[in-house]
């Protein structure tokens, strides 16, 4: 800490910060298929970096290039400022937890975890303590003497995690580390991971399909699609200010309304349906008049009422579906012209929501700050 005031952890905003990993124009092709496409990315020490994206978008390939199992077709990867190209996997201060776990089937759980330690410069006397510590962390103490085929899928996943963590590497790559765990264990392990990260200062790169998980653990999230990075930002940034309809749709629940923009005081008016008032939105973007655009509206920002409210945007629609989630309900509402809009309400007052049922005509409203205007 240099300044007097407590600093937030945001090395990516600090031009003087030295990244731990630098991708410089990294492309990976398999034959004529491009799995990773010209990626530029810096990951900083002590970060918890999450990679999010649909299946087959190149997340694992990116990790494998970091671990040294694939060589970039083009570009360079730097670790601590040094080009990794000539460093074989066994000499990289990087450990990876494989998506397929890749446990050693002929070794016990204990020996799987001890495997890397035995090949490090850790003194023999300390190995046992370290393995026991790892076993305790992933709650597998009683299974230490079993072989991988004698334990369940979730337990295997935890062995793989413990094995990758054991060496306390500078950089830890986790490829969907928690996918096979039940919700409670997953939450516990998430916090455990963050705790480990805090204690050891290890940098984590984690691949996940669970955006809630990414939101919970990550310092920054990268959304990938077709081998490209669409957006790299902090979780709140990526949720509140997605830079494209794809990202908005990928992270969290959202309604995307397509339309054309027309300049308006403080922003734009979006024409979205014949005979309907345009929707107004504040935006830092500069769009030309009549340009095609998208409006992303999060369901929790939309108010639901039975009588017409006063707001910047007010539309009327018919309730098609109600998803009751316990603490809140999601209303799927059809607007004139067929456009669907999702709105969410906390179920605070008892039975009050019962007033709105399927087929009801209701009013939806939101202010001009609550939607996000997107040009792609």
């Amino acid at each position, binding site marked *: 800490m240099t300044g007097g005031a407590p600093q937030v952890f945001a090395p990516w905003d600090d031009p003087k910060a030295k990244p731990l990993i630098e991708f410089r124009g990294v492309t990976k092709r398999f034959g004529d298929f491009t799995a990773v496409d010209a990626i530029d990315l810096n990951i900083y020490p002590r970060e918890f970096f999450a990679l999010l994206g649909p299946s087959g978008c190149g997340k694992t390939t990116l990790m494998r290039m970091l*671990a*040294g*199992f694939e060589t970039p077709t083009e570009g360079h990867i730097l670790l601590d400022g040094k080009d990794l190209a000539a460093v*074989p*996997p*066994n000499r990289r201060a*990087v*450990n*990876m937890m*494989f998506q*397929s776990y*890749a*446990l*050693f*089937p*002929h070794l016990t759980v204990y020996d799987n975890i001890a*495997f*890397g330690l035995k*090949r*490090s410069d850790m003194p023999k006397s300390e190995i046992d303590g370290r393995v026991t510590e790892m076993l305790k962390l992933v709650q597998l103490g009683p299974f230490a003497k*079993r*072989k991988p*085929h*004698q*334990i*369940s899928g*979730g*337990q295997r996943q935890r062995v793989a995690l413990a*094995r990758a963590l054991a*060496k306390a590497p500078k950089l830890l790559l986790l490829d969907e580390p928690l996918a096979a765990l039940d919700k409670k264990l997953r939450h516990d392990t998430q916090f455990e991971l963050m705790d480990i990260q805090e204690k050891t200062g290890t940098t984590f790169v984690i691949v996940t399909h669970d955006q809630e998980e990414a939101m919970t653990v990550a310092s920054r999230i990268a959304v990938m699609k077709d081998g490209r990075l669409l957006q790299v930002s902090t979780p709140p940034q990526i949720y509140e200010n997605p830079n494209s309809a794809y990202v908005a749709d990928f992270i969290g629940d959202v309604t995307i309304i397509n339309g054309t923009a027309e300049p308006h005081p403080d922003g734009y008016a979006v024409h979205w349906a014949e005979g309907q008032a345009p929707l107004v939105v504040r935006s830092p973007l500069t769009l030309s008049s009549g340009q095609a655009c998208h409006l992303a509206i999060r369901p929790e920002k939309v108010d639901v009422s039975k009588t017409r409210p006063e707001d910047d945007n007010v539309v009327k629609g018919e309730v098609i579906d109600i998803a009751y989630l316990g603490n809140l309900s999601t209303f799927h509402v059809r607007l004139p012209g067929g456009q669907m809009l999702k709105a969410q309400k906390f179920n605070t007052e008892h039975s009050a929501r019962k007033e709105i049922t399927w087929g009801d005509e209701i009013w939806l409203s939101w202010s001009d700050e609550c939607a996000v205007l997107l040009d792609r």
Partner: protein
Amino acid sequence: MRRLSWFNVTSLTLGFAFLYVPMLILIVYSFNESKLVTVWAGFSTKWYGELFRNEAFLDAAGVTLRVAFISATIATVLGTMAAYVMVRGGRFFGRTLFSGMIYAPLVMPEVITGLSLLLLFIAIGLDRGVLTIVLAHTTFAMCYVSVVVSSRLVTFDRSVEEAALDLGCTPFDAFRSVTLPIIAPAVISGWLLAFTLSLDDLVIASFTAGPSATTLPIKIFSSVRLGVSPEINALSTILIAIVATGVITASLVSKRAIARQRQDQRAAVAGA
């Protein structure tokens, strides 16, 4: 259980008769009292005694076992290495040609393999004996081993090796401490295959054996040409017994291993 139709019963009977009647006759006659092979004169085990007093046969048996053991071992090492490179080496220049060439001896007529080896040994002035038979058997058994091992390697999850590298193994260490233990069953079957191939090879051995060393198949073949003696029947019966025991043990062991693994898996699922 389904009842077998008359057609199935007939084909089963015919097939098995075809396979085993000759052997059965051989076994029965090995216990024949008479010196004449085709005339039954009562039960006796005297030919077995005779056999064990026959120095020439015992020598040949010794040579055969030694050759089989050494050549199977060398062939297993070389064959495993070749399979590893073929499956794991990725695409290197001439890979298709190499893999084709490794498997070519499988279909090459043995006479040609034997003859070419003979020519080679004469050309380099190597005296024919145990060494030349070992070399010859290694050459042709190696490709069988490499077929067996590479079929195991292609179904092997590559990421397990990568995990070993990731955890600090050198490629050789990863092979020794991870790959080899996992493919061990295939390597052992490869060795057994090479061993039996060497044990019953006649053609290649007769090209490469010299006066100083004869293998059992050569010995049997040459003495049969002077007329089948009950001693040969006894010897063959012993060989059949050894091979049968080996095969049955191997299949029992592997069946047990599979059953145990299933049981473990069920226990794991139940206990989880």
